[in-house]
């Protein structure tokens, strides 16, 4: 019974741990979603602020590239250095690059074939936000339409934020290690401006490239080729350098809901696992104490108070039958109530035999 109780207790503890870890995975997904949303908002707000500046609008509407660059160049530098701005670009309808602040010398290319979000902004004249893969690489982008003084649509402005500040924030605020994996084929096809250090064999994980990681060495062990090919949010646990980690993979979708990559978040589960291990050991020890002490009590009561005195009396009866009346019973008080009568009868028989 004690073993059963201990077993049930262990099961309950394991169940509690599983629930706690499931909550942790859910928390990771929620944190990622909210942080991503906040970053998209940030990109959108900045894009709106810049596109609303009269000098910027005027230069863009006049299609004066040099003046536009002059107006926005310093702003871009500051934002890029301090706030993780990765790319900023003006487009003319339906989605032709007019000026890339991150690469001013390159313009005039039509992006409508691979930038559905951009195409939609210029077609519907509404702002959009989301993850996008551009010539300069993947970014969290916000695109706003630009209008002239007569409220005629003249183009759009896009701001793309890097993933790294967002993931670093996740690490700093929540202690989560994080990585972003982007489809290698898409990167090769679209992000032609990316540096050669991004598309390296060391960063290849399955069909993806590890684009950014808060702890590359750790993430290399946590997310392997066989793990990363997910189409739904999935989680698993893995031990790296003696530390158990809970890994949550979340598919990354672009504006058209096409999967373009995977987010990986990892949480150190060593504290909960250690607590579970300790709990199991203490429960097992408590069970051992329970079994031993209960067995001891039963043995002492049954054998000490009943069986052993009974055996001793039985031996004396045997001796009496052989004619040996020299062995007296133990003092009557030393027997339990049930044996006192038997001991008294033995004494009467022994006295009769002695006569």
């Amino acid at each position, binding site marked *: 019974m004690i073993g059963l109780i201990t077993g049930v207790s262990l099961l309950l503890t394991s169940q509690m741990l599983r629930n706690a870890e499931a909550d942790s995975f859910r928390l990771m997904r929620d944190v990622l979603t909210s942080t991503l949303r906040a970053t998209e908002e940030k990109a959108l707000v900045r894009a709106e602020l810049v596109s609303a500046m009269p000098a910027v609008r005027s230069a863009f509407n006049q299609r004066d590239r040099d003046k536009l660059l002059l107006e926005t160049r310093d702003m871009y*530098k*500051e934002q890029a*250095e*301090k706030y993780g701005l990765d790319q900023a670009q003006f487009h003319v309808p339906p989605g032709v690059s007019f000026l890339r602040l991150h690469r001013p010398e390159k313009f005039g290319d039509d992006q409508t074939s691979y930038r559905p979000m951009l195409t939609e902004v210029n077609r519907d004249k509404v702002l959009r936000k989301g993850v996008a893969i551009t010539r300069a690489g993947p970014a969290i982008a916000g695109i706003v339409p630009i209008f002239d003084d007569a409220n005629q649509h003249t183009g759009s402005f896009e701001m793309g934020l890097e993933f*790294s500040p967002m993931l*670093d924030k996740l690490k*700093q605020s929540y202690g989560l290690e994080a990585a972003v994996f982007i489809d290698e084929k898409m990167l090769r096809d679209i992000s032609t401006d990316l540096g050669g250090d991004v598309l390296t064999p060391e960063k290849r994980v399955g069909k993806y490239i590890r684009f*950014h*990681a*808060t*702890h*590359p*060495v*750790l993430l290399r062990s946590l997310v392997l080729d066989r793990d990363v090919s997910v189409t739904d949010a999935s989680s698993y646990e893995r031990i*790296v*350098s*003696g*530390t158990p980690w809970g890994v949550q993979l979340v598919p990354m979708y672009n504006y058209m809901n096409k999967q373009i990559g995977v987010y990986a978040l990892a949480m150190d589960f060593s504290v909960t*696992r*250690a607590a*579970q*291990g*300790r709990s*199991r*050991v*203490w429960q*097992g*020890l408590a069970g*051992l*104490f329970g079994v*031993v*002490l209960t*067995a*001891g009590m039963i*043995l*002492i009561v049954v*054998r*000490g*108070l009943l069986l*052993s*005195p009974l055996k*001793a009396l039985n031996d004396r009866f045997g001796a009496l039958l052989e004619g040996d009346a020299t062995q007296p019973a*133990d003092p009557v008080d*030393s*027997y339990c109530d049930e044996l006192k009568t038997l001991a008294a009868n033995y004494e009467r028989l022994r006295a009769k035999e002695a006569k």
Partner: protein
Amino acid sequence: MKRRPARSRAPRAVSLFILTALFCIALALFPHKSRGQSKSSESRTVVGPASAPMASAAPEASAPEVAARAKTAAPAPSEAEEAEEATIPMGRGLPVVVRIAFFFLELKELDDTKGEFEAIVDMRLRWSDLRLAYPLQESPRGYKEYRGAAAEKRLTTIWKPHVEPTNRLEVDDNVGRRVRIFPNGDVETIERRAARYKVKIDAQRFPFDRQYLKVDYIVREDTTDAVVLDYENDDVEWSRIAKDAELEGWRLGLVDLSRGVVPGWNGDRYSRVAASLFVDRLPTTGIAPIFIPLIASLLIPLLAIWMNKSTEDGFEIEAFELANISIGGLFSVIALSFAIYSSYGMIAGGDNTVTRLFGLNYMTLALSLSVVIAFYRFKFPRRLFGRYVEEQLFLFICWALPILTLGTSVAFLLVAAA
């Protein structure tokens, strides 16, 4: 009660043997103070840059290439320019973001008793100073490089962040330094130092414990309004342990960076970044010198119980004979604790597996002495419940006490390992 002289001498001999054995084990523990040191005696001396060439071990891909090249003789700026360049660079606004990264080249020793470790660590700093920008044509390699004395000299003429370690105890005077200045004004310095650092030892899970060897740097003089220490993906990748590094008795883990601020006067805050390398103790190093004697000493009080035998008249061996074993065991445990705590100072205080096992030892000794006094000397169970209950109670103690004692000691170890 009739004594049997041949048997009564046995406990004395056994207790004497146990005492002798435990003292020998205790004395044997003293040399283990030196664990956690590097295998080779040559590498114990603090090695400077000469014996650990920066270019050969720095994690940067271009480092070997750099080592092969000659020092760059960059044109010296004028005095006025130097004075101007030595002030804080505000070309990109304030605060100046200084990116920092660490590379653990070699671990020489971890003295967990003193709470210190010795290591050769490379520290890389990167910041931007637009005043140092120059035309790309001036440097075909893409940067101007200064090494050794030239680097020291160049650093006196430009602004550099005043970063200092907060937990460094001793440092070798030899320092390897390299400075690179890029055409866009980016500055990169790498400094290699052999030093001893303070480390907080947490022995609660000894011998399954994990220690964090931390190198903690803070910006002096400049508050977070002026200078901020930070790191990016590239710095995280650079921060790691050398592949061939090792530390005897420990398994090396990963390096992690963390940033923070230190409060100062009047609301000032100072930026800090720490690199911590975690190391896991190899549990086998503690089994022979600590846990075998501890578990063995648990048997002493049990012997005081096992050596006796219940008879119709009471017990075969008199109480004082077996009390001697318990008292001898008490002194053995005291001697053992003295020896272990002398060698492993970090486990002397606080709650850990060793202190728990010592507690269990003392408790088992107390229980065995209680059995000797209650059963053998005053015969309380017999007086209260009769000889049959006494007999069964004694038999129960004979098997239950070892099971519970050993079960508890195993539980202590498993809890530490969990």
